[in-house]
């Protein structure tokens, strides 16, 4: 049970507006789940209910086998734009975070130092937060979320606001944390999700419209095809006319649709060789998460 959350029929209404509607999913230990969706899809509202900032209108959240109890000492939360008391120094801030999450006074210092070392802020423990860069703030935000060794980590757009280096550092840290915690993070940057995901949850207009592992979803939405690059458009056109394949030409590129693994690559190559056109590239194109996202979100 440790590290497991079942979300069942979660709904949140603000007056007439339904922000989250009938959402159900399961988070299992040591996995990372990406919550994907456009702005206003209900991602932050969902995270707010999981962190108990908001009470659901209906539905239940079963944390480690129980519902309706204060499980907040078991969670860590990093908001999208974490804000800090600039007049505090890093260690003071983290010790306070630890104490308020139930870490006793004796261990708070040690745990804080460990968390700061982990996120790479070990050498600025006595520095005021006011002077920190965006990347340092995000890492401090992560430190306050993990200092009490939570079983669950909820991260709202953890890398969206960072530059490429900061993003890489954060992603590596989160990957490492996956060894010991159950992670749920929202994002709209699909490359990140592709890299670090055991489960995908697609949200649109408050509803969970697709969920599953990356591979399953890729398979489901795969719109696989071969892409053949000719040197001229004429060659491409004559290839399409001569072959009996389901091919479509666009300038000097020909797209050949794959259905139920037909035609095979061998067949395509065979035809290409027979017709003796000059070609520069042949490849099997896979659908990207980006394409899936657009399909799912636009309703297929």
């Amino acid at each position, binding site marked *: 049970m440790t590290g497991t959350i079942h979300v069942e029929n979660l709904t949140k209404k603000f007056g007439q507006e339904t922000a989250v509607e009938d959402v159900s999913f399961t988070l299992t230990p040591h996995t990372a789940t990406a919550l994907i969706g456009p702005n206003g899809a209900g991602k*932050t509202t969902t995270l*707010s209910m999981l*962190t*108990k*900032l*908001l009470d659901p209108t209906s539905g239940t959240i079963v944390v480690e086998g129980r519902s309706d109890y*204060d499980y*907040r*000492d078991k*969670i860590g*939360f990093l*908001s*999208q*734009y*974490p*804000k*800090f*008391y600039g*007049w*505090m120094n890093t260690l*003071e801030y983290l010790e*306070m*975070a630890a*104490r*308020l*999450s*139930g870490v006793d*006074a004796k261990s708070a210092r040690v745990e804080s130092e460990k968390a700061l070392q982990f996120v790479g802020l070990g050498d600025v423990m006595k520095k005021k937060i006011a002077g920190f860069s965006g990347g340092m703030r995000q890492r401090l935000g992560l430190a*306050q979320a993990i200092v009490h060794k939570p079983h669950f980590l909820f991260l*709202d757009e953890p890398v969206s606001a960072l530059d490429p280096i900061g993003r890489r550092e954060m992603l590596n840290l989160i990957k490492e944390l996956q060894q010991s915690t159950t992670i749920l993070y929202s994002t709209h940057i699909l490359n990140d999700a592709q890299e670090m995901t055991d489960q995908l949850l697609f949200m649109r207009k408050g509803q969970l419209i697709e969920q599953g592992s990356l591979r399953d979803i890729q398979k489901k939405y795969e719109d696989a095809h071969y892409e053949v690059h000719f040197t001229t458009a004429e060659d491409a056109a004559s290839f399409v006319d001569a072959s009996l394949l389901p091919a479509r030409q666009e300038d000097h590129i020909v797209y050949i649709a794959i259905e139920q693994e037909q035609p095979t690559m061998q067949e395509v190559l065979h035809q290409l060789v027979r017709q003796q056109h000059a070609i520069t590239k042949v490849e099997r194109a896979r659908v990207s998460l980006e394409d899936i996202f657009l399909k799912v979100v636009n309703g297929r």
Partner: protein
Amino acid sequence: MNQFSVLALKEWREVVRSFKWLWIPIVFILLGIMEPVITYFLPQILESAGNMPEDAVFQLPDMTPEQIFLSTLGQYQFIGMLVVAFAFSGLIARERKNGTAAFLYVRPLSYPSYVLSKWAVSSVVLIGSFILGISASAYYIMLLFGEFSFTNFLGLVGVYSLWIVLAISLTLLMSALFTPGIATALSLFLIVFFPMIDGLIFRYWPYTPWKLANYAGMIMVGEASTSDVVWTIAIAVLLIAVCVTLSILISKRRAASVTI
């Protein structure tokens, strides 16, 4: 209690690092000693300003020590309360609006500790500042205007301290209820403006807690009716308890509106 000490340490650190521990006492001391000094030297100041007809005669009434205390309290009621409203109305509202409180609200936070830590630290700072200020004022008044009743002075300090705690409690409640701008505006209304018009609205009802500052002055002059004062104190204490309790409940309910 654990959370209270952690949160009170945080509030205290903020008081220290934002220089509140320094500037607020200085303001109360300055207001306290400027009043007697200016009043005492007013004739000389007016004369040295010149441009007066030769035969103009200044007949300033002789001021009693008690009257100077009253005008010092007047300064505290205006500038002192402005300081309270502006510097303390953001205590909850601002950290909710700017998002610094998000990391508190997602933890198993004890809201009584959260609110009481702010209330206690603010009360200590303001009562400390007031006592320093009024003592400095008393010293100057004694030097320049003569002796006064020490018992009455203690009465003034006690009753006005209670008013300060009430003012901070009202301000904290506004801060729990509203966004920073509205909280400041309503605090100004409740603790700066309302005491001025309380006498008009509740003319025949002597127990409104907004009369505390008046009673503090009347105790100094020795004209206060004991039963009126006692009843007003009782009602003020009750109102403080109500404000603090509501602040706890409301800051918990409104935690979800924190910027995240």
